[in-house]
């Protein structure tokens, strides 16, 4: 049957269940399909709750076979929510499914939400929004340019490397010829440049892509470039080259066959040492051919310590994007298990390998930070192309090295620098457009998780809280703002995103009060210098807030953070009041007056302002983009909410299985599940 485009249409009597949100009973309402969102409005006249799902957030739509009560759709979202929709007419369901499948896989940038999203701001404000994060200012803050590191015009108009920014910092002694030569020897032309300069030790974190060295290839300019990096740190006579790829895998990718052939060839050589000159000649020719072949095939590799003097090569095994993609899928599956036993859960956690990968990334950051801060040695980081694992390692290192990046604004700057400007392929990795699924991978998710793991270990060291990281996470996927669109700076410029879309950072900054960690201490010495985290396995936890919405939206737990924010605000008010009083006292000394009694303000929990959610995408939607107002309501957490009590299990379920002697049910074999309802609240 022909598919009708459902945009702009609505379907009534739809039932929606967001189980991942802890919802048990489906709500009945009307489903609207706009050009940018799927919108569900509850019929209940009292609540009229609205659920907004931007199409860009949908990672998959699945249609189940129709049942007598209707047809069911499963919407899987990129922020790991799962929404079930039951549509009475199969025909409607088929159409919506087809429309959504199309809408959630835009083929062109022009179809993306951010290019139609129009917050109520004028041109100047929009331009200002793009200037909010100023990378040049950050480089100045870290003290460059200086007499060691200088800007280079080599990449203006993206001539040398089209995935790098045009503004780059290189060692002072690196001449344009060296830069160009080095870039030719590096994958995608991504030559060594400065990522972070540590003023205390004058050591630097630099980044690049892998050398195209193959087996014997070398490049004088590249060797000079590394020499220049070393010379830009007056205190040391070598640099670390950190290859973030596992060494074993690297050797394997260089060709197992090749090494076997080489081995046989070497045996031949030994055998033929004593033989005739002709045979010798033939063998030599054969070996040369073999080598060239391998070079062409692999063409990649890591720095040969024989050619590069004064480097120390360090491998840190971070797996590639494909391993990470499937690992994250496994961890999501673990989060979606209905009533897992502790064994199932821990086994799933181990089996996913996710925490192992997070640990590897953090370990890379720790190695770099230690080299820079403790040893005063500069570090050059690369992986293959230098835009995934390299970005992770460098940004984690910055987070550890510099307290500034642990502030709200600092994290924005860090993401803008190490990820956005240095050509992390956002649109490929986060599937902004319909494309190769093999290019998709949760690379930045992992960096955000590293930040979260660190904030769990150092509760007082970060200005931002978990909500901020989750908000950034959803913006990376949602395409509501133009910040994360495209794959590199050049592409962004060509798309003229700054004219057609808005930057996310000022919006998040405006909402910073809800992103602030009340325990953050600006003047605390141990956590204000270099962070030295413990990376023992037991320090890592599953990031429940991100992966498990069931938990997040369970009856509002009492939040110490909210409590402390209130306390902090209250203290501030009291302090002001005290100062006021004292001023008035001094002014009034001696004068008999009647003094009004100052009531000590009662501690109130800060409530987030209720956001409006009309038929148009609310201009101020933030954080949990997927839903309009309901996202806010469960954060409100009214203190005496009766929902604080959580039904352990449905009561009827409980009495139905109470007696053992009936011989029907062996209760002991049931998974004991205090906080979980065994009864599936199904749609039909």
């Amino acid at each position: 049957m022909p598919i009708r485009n459902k945009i702009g249409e609505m379907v009534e009597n739809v039932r929606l269940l967001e189980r991942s949100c802890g919802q048990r009973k489906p709500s009945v309402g009307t489903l609207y399909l706009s050009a940018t969102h799927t919108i569900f409005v509850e019929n209940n006249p009292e609540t009229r709750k609205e659920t907004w799902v931007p199409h860009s957030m949908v990672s998959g739509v699945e249609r189940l076979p129709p049942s007598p009560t209707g047809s069911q759709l499963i919407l899987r979202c990129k922020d790991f929510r799962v929404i079930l929709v039951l549509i009475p007419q199969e025909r409607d369901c088929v159409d919506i499914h087809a429309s959504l499948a199309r809408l959630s896989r835009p083929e062109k940038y022009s179809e993306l939400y951010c290019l139609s999203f129009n917050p109520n701001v004028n041109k100047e404000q929009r331009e200002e929004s793009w200037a909010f994060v100023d990378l040049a200012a950050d480089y100045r803050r870290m003290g460059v340019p200086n007499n060691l590191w200088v800007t280079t015009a080599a990449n203006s108009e993206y001539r040398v490397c089209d995935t790098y920014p045009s503004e780059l910092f290189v060692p002072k002694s690196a001449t344009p010829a060296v830069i160009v030569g080095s870039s030719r020897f590096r994958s995608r032309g991504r030559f060594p440049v400065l990522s972070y300069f540590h003023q205390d030790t004058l050591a630097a974190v630099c980044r690049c892509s892998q050398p195209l060295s193959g087996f014997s290839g070398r490049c004088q300019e590249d060797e000079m470039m590394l020499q220049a990096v070393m010379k830009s740190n007056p205190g040391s006579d070598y640099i670390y080259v950190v290859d973030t790829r596992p060494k074993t895998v690297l050797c394997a990718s260089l060709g197992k066959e090749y090494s076997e052939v080489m081995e046989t060839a070497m045996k031949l050589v030994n055998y033929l040492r004593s033989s005739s000159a002709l045979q010798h000649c033939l063998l030599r020719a054969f070996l040369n051919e073999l080598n060239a072949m391998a070079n062409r095939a692999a063409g990649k590799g890591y720095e040969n310590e024989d050619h590069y003097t004064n480097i120390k090569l360090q491998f840190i095994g971070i797996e590639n994007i494909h391993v990470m993609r499937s690992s994250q899928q496994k961890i999501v599956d673990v989060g979606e298990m209905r009533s897992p036993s502790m064994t199932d859960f821990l086994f799933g956690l181990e089996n996913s390998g996710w925490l192992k990968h997070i640990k590897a990334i953090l370990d890379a950051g720790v190695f770099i930070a230690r080299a820079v801060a403790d040893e005063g040695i500069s570090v050059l980081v690369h992986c293959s192309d230098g835009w995934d694992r390299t970005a992770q390692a460098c940004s984690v290192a910055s987070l550890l090295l510099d307290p500034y990046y642990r502030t709200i604004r600092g994290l924005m700057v860090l993401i803008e620098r190490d990820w956005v400007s240095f050509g992390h392929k956002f649109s490929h990795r986060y599937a902004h457009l319909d494309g190769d699924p093999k290019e998709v991978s949760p690379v930045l998710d992992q960096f955000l998780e590293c930040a979260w793991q660190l904030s769990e270990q150092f509760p007082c060291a970060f200005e931002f809280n978990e909500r901020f990281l989750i908000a950034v996470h959803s913006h990376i996927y949602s395409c509501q703002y133009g910040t994360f669109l495209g794959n590199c700076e050049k592409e962004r410029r060509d798309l003229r995103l700054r004219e057609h879309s808005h930057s996310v950072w000022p919006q998040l900054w405006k909402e910073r009060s809800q992103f602030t960690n009340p325990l953050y201490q600006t003047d605390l010495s141990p956590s204000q210098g270099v962070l030295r985290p413990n990376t023992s396995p037991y320090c890592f936890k599953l990031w429940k807030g991100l992966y498990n919405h069931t938990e997040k939206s369970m009856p509002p737990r009492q939040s110490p953070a909210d409590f402390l924010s209130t306390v902090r605000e209250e203290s501030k008010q009291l302090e002001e009041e005290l100062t006021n009083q004292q001023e008035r006292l001094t002014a009034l000394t001696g004068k008999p007056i009647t003094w009004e009694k100052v009531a000590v303000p009662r501690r109130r929990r800060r409530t987030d302002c209720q956001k409006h959610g009309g038929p148009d995408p609310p201009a101020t939607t933030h954080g949990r983009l997927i839903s309009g107002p309901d996202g806010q309501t469960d954060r409100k957490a009214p203190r005496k909410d009766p929902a604080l009590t959580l039904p352990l299990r449905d009561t009827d379920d409980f009495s139905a299985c109470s007696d053992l002697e009936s011989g029907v049910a062996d209760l002991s074999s049931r998974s004991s599940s205090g906080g979980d309802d065994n009864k599936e609240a199904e749609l039909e």
Partner: protein
Amino acid sequence: MEFSEHIRTANVEDVELRQPLQPAGRGTLCITGHHLLFSVRGDGGGRQLLLLLRSVDAVEKRTSGSSGTITIKCKDLRVLQLDIPGMEQCLNIAHSIETLSCLDRVSDMFPFFYRPVDLRLQGCWGLSSPEGHFSQAQELHQKWRLSSVNKDYLVCPSYPPALIVPACIDDKTLRKLAKFRQGGRFPVLCYYHRKNGMAIVRSSQPLMGANRKCCTEDEQLLEAVIEGSDKGYIIDTRSSQQAQQARMTGGGFESKSCYGRWKRLHRQMERGKALQESLIKLVEACGDESHNMDRWLSKLENSKWLSHVQTALSTAGLLAECVERDGHSVLVHGSEGTDCSLLISTLAQLIMDPRCRTLEGFLTLLEREWVQAGHPFQQRCAHSAYSHARVQQESPVFLLLLDCVWQLWRQFPLALGFSEALLLRLASEVYASDYGTFLCNSDQERCLLGVKEKTYCLFQALLRDRDLYSNPLYEPTELAIWPSVHPQSLQLWRGFFLRWTPQVRQLEEAQEEIRHMVMECARLALSVRDTAARPSENSS
């Protein structure tokens, strides 16, 4: 009581001490009857270590040449190392620590010698008595009475002298039915839910035996518990299979034919040796230094400790649900009724009853449900996770309770009036203490040895340190606090199991900051009020 015969070398000079989170120090080591004392040389008495020998779980010695190293593994999971010059001295010291750390006679233990200068032994030991508890609970008086049938500990040696039972059951009946329960632990009231008048009653298993014996008096008592209600629940902390098997050894369960109005629910809880081994495995996993994530997760899973936490909390949740949601009384027992029954009744009370969640309330609850109710502390806590001794009666049930309470505390950071520091303190005091509270296995033993006259009470001491042990975030709520037992909601109790790693310091720092912030706020509020009041004073 000659400790000196165990001390061949009392003092050693020039010993190096290495302990977690502190720089190594060189100084003098001294062994006394109850303590290991180490004072850093030339430090003016500033840095000292005073270690109760009772808290030593295992001693390992290694000698090389003329010196030796003693590794001391403590019951609070701390590991210390002493480098001692002189092999003989080293062996002597190790021997003394080994012997003095596991003295058998309770009256030789340190609480009987502990005499702090600022305290005097006074009449009142403990926070409350069964009598006091009953007389305060007016709401009980109609249906329940205080029985002194056990005043000479003859009916049940592990129960206290006074017990709360249904008012209509007389002492004669109690004496009879006590014979039908293992160890004489007949059903007694442990919690009365004021909202709906329902009760939690606990006991040991009925001695039904292979030929399905019945006891009319026992049935009468239980019938009296649910008088005026349609039914009651029995939560058996064993699987139905285990309960069936128990009949072979004379135990059993409440059969449907005799207890028609009671519905039995079985929840298998791990106990005894299995629990002790679980703890040993977990502590071993925490000490693994291979930095291998897969190995850690698999060891964590393999220890099963978190599974035990999950089961305990969910069984307690079930119990609370029966009482609070379903509105019925519940009888809890396993086999002996001195371990798991106490564990889940305590947790259920924390879930339901806001009065148990204050600092005093919690300590009173522990005193009532564990100390007075006869949890055999001496047997269960003789050794901890490092000991090389064969596991006999040891079982970390109380530690499991503390872990579960910590999980509650973490899930409801505002609802409990006490701090993590309290739980940590209790976790080490239960194994080795200056105080007499956790000595012996029952009230009777405590009376015989004069514990209440000759030692100090820990709970009273803890209440004197209110600032340290109260929760600055505490905001009382009347609501039940239902814990989530989803595996993702339960975490390893880092504060305890990784207590001696630097990582935990950061978390402590955060706790301090919280306390500081709240106190600062209160201070400001006070000054504002004072300043506001001053001018009016002037004017008058």
